[in-house]
């Protein structure tokens, strides 16, 4: 099934509200172009840009969680207030191990527990894309987190408990489409960060991966997207899931909100039709869990 709008000659840029449709991740020899695709797949824009009117990627977006309010940092190439001057190795350490160039641990509101599964190539391409964006001088806003969650010195212990870095484990008997779908959902898209329940220490409950959360961002419920036919999306067709990811429509004609519309606009509508189909194929195999 091709993307309906593209098949009709409607460029996705129109649907996504700007930006040319990206190349497939495997295509092209321009790392910046490839990196743009990863950037969209990971939806970096949302958390790192304060508002639609604010300077792009210069940080300041508030994310309310049960542990306090975090503010996305500046990830423009500005050397003083952004990530200018980082080496590729600095960048890979940040996304894979959750540590800044000076060794300080990041709060897991930055979803490095998902990004840790991104390939080296994808991380380097993503860095090339970010390096090519305009630098903006805007100091980071300190997080507003209640104790003990705001105690940064505890984070290495949290990481030792809950960060399983490295690639996704091999699953014998799965085809390439499923593998790609899993990579997009679990690594780049970090869907489980909002769609899964967390334990009292704020770690995603892997036994109930994607089974929904009563306490998502802004303290609002986030739906179950496992294959559960009653509570999840097990009754949806792959085409219905792909269409939601393309324009945000649910099978009953309703349109998503609650932050998911932003995900569609910034991220899933900018993927290739094949990648949206891969996500659908993978989600329909996720066990109910909840």
């Amino acid at each position: 099934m091709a993307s309906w709008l593209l098949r009709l000659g409607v460029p996705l840029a129109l649907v996504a509200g700007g930006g040319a449709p990206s190349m497939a991740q495997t295509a092209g020899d321009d790392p910046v172009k490839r990196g743009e695709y990863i950037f969209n797949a990971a939806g970096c824009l949302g958390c790192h840009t304060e508002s639609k009117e604010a300077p792009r990627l210069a940080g300041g977006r508030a994310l309310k969680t049960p542990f306090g309010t975090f503010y996305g940092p500046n990830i423009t190439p500005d050397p003083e207030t952004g990530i200018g001057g980082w080496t590729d190795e600095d960048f890979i350490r940040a996304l894979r191990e959750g540590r800044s160039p000076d060794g300080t641990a990041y709060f897991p509101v930055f979803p490095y527990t998902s990004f840790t599964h991104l390939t080296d190539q994808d991380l380097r391409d993503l860095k090339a894309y970010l390096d090519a964006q305009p630098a903006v001088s805007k100091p980071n806003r300190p997080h507003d987190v209640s104790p003990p969650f705001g105690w940064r010195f505890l984070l290495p212990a949290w990481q030792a408990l809950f960060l399983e870095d490295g690639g996704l484990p091999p699953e014998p008997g799965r085809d390439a489409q499923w593998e790609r779908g899993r990579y997009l959902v679990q690594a780049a898209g970090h869907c489980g960060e909002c769609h899964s329940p967390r334990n009292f220490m704020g770690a995603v409950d892997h036994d109930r991966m994607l089974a929904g959360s009563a306490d998502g961002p802004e303290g609002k419920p986030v739906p179950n997207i496992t294959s559960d036919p009653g509570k999840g999306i097990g009754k949806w067709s792959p085409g219905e899931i792909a269409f939601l990811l393309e324009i945000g429509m649910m099978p009953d004609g309703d349109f998503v909100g609650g932050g998911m519309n932003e995900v569609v606009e910034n991220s899933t509508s900018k993927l290739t039709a094949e990648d949206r189909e891969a996500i659908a194929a993978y989600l329909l195999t996720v066990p109910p869990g909840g």
Partner: protein
Amino acid sequence: MSKIGQKQGIVRNAVICVASAGILVAAIGQAGAQSQRPVSADPAAVVKERESAMKSMGDAMKKISAYVKNEGGTVEGVREGAAAIRQASQKIAPSLFPADTGIGRIEGSEAKPEIWQQWPKFEQAAARLVTAGNDLSSAAEGGDRAAIARQFAQVGQSCGGCHDDFRQKKN
């Protein structure tokens, strides 16, 4: 008097108060009308009407998507759907969101308090849908599938953008 009877009395008095307040505001005239959103005489009925208007638009979008995706929809269906969207969308800001119909004010509401805290922004979001619905109608009259698909996407974006900011689903 039973507790239920007491409650009913309180509700009846509240309704009378609210209605009187409404009449009073009307009598005073325009003073404060811009900053004070009006309240309704029967919030539960408004919520019901709102949900049915939203559902009629959802049904229309479902019907139109069947044409856009080439899954058995017809241009005639698109025209009917676009007409339903136009009809419902024009009522949103003027009458479907009185200030006493938000979450916490009335059971079952999915309308976030931000609607009344940021009323001009909400009005803008509603106006965007009205425009998109009109454009979809024009495209449906023209009968060009790509143009219909484009406007369908525009309507969808208006729905989703507003839902992101102003709706909190119950489940």
